[in-house]
């Protein structure tokens, strides 16, 4: 140690960069409570596919919007329970594997249902290490009747009865992001969803990025950091890992695929054939992309750069 300057360079700890295969093998176990968050934006399909490939079973999956990723995990038989607030194909219609499970018990699926605010509040409580979160909601609705975990809390000042939801503390949360450094300091722009709360609520966090950057990139704009490396266990570098979801500034949402999912998933056979071809028969994300020639040209984002700001003093 030379002590040449009062400022050490913020010496990096050991890199947390691992392959998707290793990250899932290490942090997702049968029976775990697993969160893959991202509201329309930055949904990590690459992680979902790896969970399917590693044949995890009895997972409790929690997501505001199950989206196609959960339809695929359900069809692959990975889950025993789903905790959610809106289970549809956004802009298209139904999630058919989800509907088959709930309407016909094929396969059997336990559900625990909130509104979006309820799910956000559950993650917020988990992240803040509170046992519950208060909200003004659910009066005059049937949600508390169909979900007994929705409770009431009494305001100590007004005596008012407010709704309460219990903390949600997953075993692992998987967050897709535009960029992170090797320690997991993670920057996201565009829609932020509930990723920060889910990550802080979680025992383990896997960050999957479009781009691995030097710590100096993160430090140049610290207000852009959503998740600090100190709560991250693994960093996976997986460009295009969110497809058919999107990554602002990297690639557009593949709306055509969301529309196509209606026909793929309506029939269980064709859904299984999809999983066989695009998930089970490929090794990894590179293999998946190889099956989609032209995809990256079709969806690559145009440049719409913003200006930087001055952090000087």
């Amino acid at each position: 140690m030379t002590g040449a300057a009062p400022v050490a360079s913020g010496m990096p700890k050991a890199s947390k960069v691992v392959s998707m295969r290793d990250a899932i093998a290490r942090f997702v176990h049968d029976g775990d409570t697993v969160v893959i968050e991202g509201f329309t934006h930055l949904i990590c399909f690459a992680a979902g596919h790896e969970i399917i490939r590693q044949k995890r079973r009895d997972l409790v999956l929690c997501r505001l919007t199950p989206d196609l990723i959960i339809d695929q995990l359900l069809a692959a038989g990975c889950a025993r329970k789903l905790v959610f607030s809106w289970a549809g194909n956004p802009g298209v219609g139904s999630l058919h594997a989800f509907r088959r499970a709930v309407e016909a018990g094929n396969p059997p699926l336990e559900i625990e249902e909130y509104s979006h605010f309820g799910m956000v509040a559950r993650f917020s409580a988990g992240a803040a290490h509170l046992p519950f979160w208060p909200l003004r909601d659910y009066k005059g609705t049937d949600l508390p009747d169909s979900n007994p975990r929705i409770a009431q809390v009494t305001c100590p000042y007004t005596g008012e009865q407010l709704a309460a939801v219990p903390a949600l503390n997953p075993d692992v949360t998987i967050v897709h992001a535009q960029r992170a450094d090797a320690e997991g300091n993670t920057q996201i722009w565009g829609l932020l969803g509930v990723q920060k709360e889910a990550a802080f609520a979680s025992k383990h966090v896997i960050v999957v990025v479009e781009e691995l950057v030097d710590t100096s990139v993160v430090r140049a704009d610290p207000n852009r950091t959503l998740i600090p490396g100190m709560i991250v266990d693994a960093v996976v570098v997986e460009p295009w890992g969110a497809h058919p979801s999107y990554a602002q500034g990297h690639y557009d949402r593949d709306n055509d695929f969301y529309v196509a999912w209606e026909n793929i998933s309506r029939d269980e056979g064709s859904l299984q054939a999809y999983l066989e071809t695009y998930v089970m028969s490929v090794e990894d994300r590179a293999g998946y992309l190889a099956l989609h020639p032209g995809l990256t040209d079709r969806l690559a984002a145009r440049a719409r750069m913003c200006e930087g700001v001055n952090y000087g003093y």
Partner: protein
Amino acid sequence: MTVVASRELRDGEIVFVGIGLPNLACNLARATHAPALVLIYESGAVGALPERLPVSIGDPSLVTGSLMVTGMADIFQLFLQGGRIEVGFLGGAQIDKYGNINTTVVGDYAKPKVRLPGSGGAAEIATHAQRTVIISRLSTRAFPEAVDYITSPGNRGKGKSRREWGMPGAGPVKVITDRGVLCASDVDGEMELAALYPGVTTEDVTSRVGWKLRVRDSLEAVAPPSAEELRLLREVLDPGKLYLKGS
């Protein structure tokens, strides 16, 4: 229906936008009489100016060029629960005479005939927006006397009025349909036929509602869409008929 919904919006209002026809109606209002409308989406985009018709409420075009993008905790706590939303649009598979909405299940919750997506943010929009407007095509199936499941609270539900429940917002003030407009009664919040589209009879509406629909003494006539409104919708806003199919 989309045109009538767009006219519900006043210039400069802060509107919570759902996907589908509400989204189209808001963008039509912004292109006509309400250029200063502030569009807020539950995904986190505030003051969005989408350069294309967004396919979902999380579309990247809602982010680029918006006034603010924030997390969903802020959207629900600060904007909605905070009472900052002036009008919210809602739709649903079933709407009852008090404007209660079901987007959860057809049939029994534990053994549904049809499992619908669920609440999303609808329960809290219905609770907190200063007023809500419901958009739905008329049919006796969609307008039962009582919904199978109350996902989003209307003007009266489970035996109590909004005031008795202590709900912050005014609730659904109108239901805009493809044949006429229902308005909530000031007295008890029940939806009443208040306006008809050109060429539509009272019977055309009452026969498509699953309860004995009250009809106001004097019915307003809804002005037909202007050529400009139709042109904007068909040629500019939704040329691919993403939302307009069948309408």
